[in-house]
């Protein structure tokens, strides 16, 4: 792995060396390194590109890292990763994709991640998307996340895309059983001519299920963002979604929320706000000695923290 690839790995997975626990590092379409543990198995798929990650019931405080790096310009791949999280397990999964494109062809990674979260299992899933490179080719990432949370299960998803991805369609769908909980935090920043579309669909089918979906985004320069969220309350459940965007320069942002209750005890809330940085926020930080540009950077980085 060269320096650029190592930097990408640090950027997307906070990895500076080979991680502890289970991991699968994918580089330019091939498995670079893999490790399994007594409780976590990683099995390559026979019929398509991708892996099955099988976490034994009751596994506690273990982690799985599955970063993907594309440094070869023009590479297009679709990868299917399926996670089977056993009953009562408590694990952290760190995914992420970094593209370094210095050529003229588009590099494209479509990761389709399916999570089967077992009864009373708890998962923290962190994914970061990052791109760089000085070529004319575009960095394209289309992550799809499919989530099924069984009774009493809990899944927390942190998804971040801050830099360098030219075009992205991020689709997440979830089905929640009784007393299942889903928490999603999305952080997104686009600049230049970038286009980012986010699409969430959550079906709360079980009694006592809940979802909390929070998206914060910053759209700069000429970039365009579309946020869609569909939350269906099909039983006694609670759903909350919040989409908060800072718009700058000549960017455009659309927020299209939809909440539907099919049950009298479904309680659903959506909040959406789009606006520029408030003038008084800039002035306050300037009275502390920051320049206008420094103030803007602080406000944006705090907002996306």
């Amino acid at each position: 792995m060269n320096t650029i690839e190592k930097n990408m790995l640090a950027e997307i997975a906070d990895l500076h060396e080979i991680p502890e626990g289970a991991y699968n590092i994918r580089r330019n379409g091939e498995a670079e390194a893999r490790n399994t543990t007594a409780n976590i198995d990683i099995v390559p798929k026979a019929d398509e590109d991708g892996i099955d990650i099988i976490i034994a019931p009751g596994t506690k405080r273990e982690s799985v890292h599955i970063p993907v790096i594309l440094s070869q310009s023009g590479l297009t791949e679709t990868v299917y990763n399926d996670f089977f999280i056993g009953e009562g397990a408590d694990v952290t999964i760190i995914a992420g994709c970094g593209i370094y494109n210095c050529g003229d062809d588009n590099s494209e990674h479509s990761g389709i991640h399916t999570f089967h979260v077992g009864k009373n299992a708890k998962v923290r899933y962190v994914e970061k998307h990052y791109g760089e490179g000085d070529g004319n080719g575009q960095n394209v990432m289309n992550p799809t996340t499919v989530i099924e949370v069984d009774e009493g299960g809990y899944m927390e998803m942190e998804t971040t895309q801050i830099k360098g991805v030219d075009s992205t369609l991020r689709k997440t769908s979830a089905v929640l059983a009784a007393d299942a909980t889903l928490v999603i935090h999305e952080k997104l920043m686009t600049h230049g001519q970038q286009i980012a579309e986010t699409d969430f669909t959550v079906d709360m089918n079980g009694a006592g299920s809940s979802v909390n979906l929070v998206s914060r985004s910053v759209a700069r320069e000429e970039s365009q963002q579309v946020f869609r969220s569909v939350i269906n309350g099909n039983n006694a459940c609670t759903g909350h979604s919040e989409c908060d965007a800072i718009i700058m320069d000549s960017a455009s942002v659309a927020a299209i929320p939809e909440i539907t209750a099919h049950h009298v005890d479904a309680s659903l809330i959506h909040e959406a706000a789009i606006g520029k940085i408030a003038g008084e926020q800039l002035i306050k930080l300037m009275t502390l000695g920051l320049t206008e540009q420094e103030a803007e950077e602080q406000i944006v980085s705090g907002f996306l923290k």
Partner: protein
Amino acid sequence: MLELQNISYVVEDGGNHKEILKNINLTIDQRFVALTGPNGGGKSTLAKIIAGIYVPTSGRILLDGEDITGLSITERARKGISFAFQQPVRFKGLTVRDLITLAAGRNISVSDACGYLSEVGLCARDYINREIDASLSGGELKRIEIAMIIARGTKLSLFDEPEAGIDLWSFGNLIQVFEKLHTRINGSIMIISHQERILNIADRIIVIANGQVQSDGTRDEVLPGLLGAATACPVLTDKL
């Protein structure tokens, strides 16, 4: 030392010239100066002109003899002017610690940041990592705003009605904060206030009304006149 020379501020209001400040001349070198007077008299405008948020229509502002009239908010802040807003600003994502650190202008330890919060009567451990967002009450925000000014420790600190929006119980503590600041500060405090207890600790009181300095002097010279002027509403007394 702050000098205001012939400061005027005119705004256009529906085609009309409205004089908010008329030829203000003041030299401030006392440790604790209170600006008071009726609402709409021009006090906040004057503070914002000193901080560089508004640009005066005419006149000059000198800080320690240097003309700062043409300097930006940032440049004035760096020269040693701090300004506590009447309505503190909320920030999604920035924490109390972030703002105190920015105010101090250097990396400070958690215990330093906690020290500033303790000075304004906040239990630091509960606040240091909280976001400056809608979850904080108006009174808490005011205290954090004051803690930021203490962290800056500049030669001129402007406070725009620090008591506004603070409940009666917190108000007593706030007075103590200012009494303490009065004894400790290395520069000048200029505070806009309507509160007798704040005016009581001022070295000098300036009354601004209708955009002009109406009276100016020591506490003993100005305060009795102010308290005596608080008579009943003339409309009501005429009716009697």
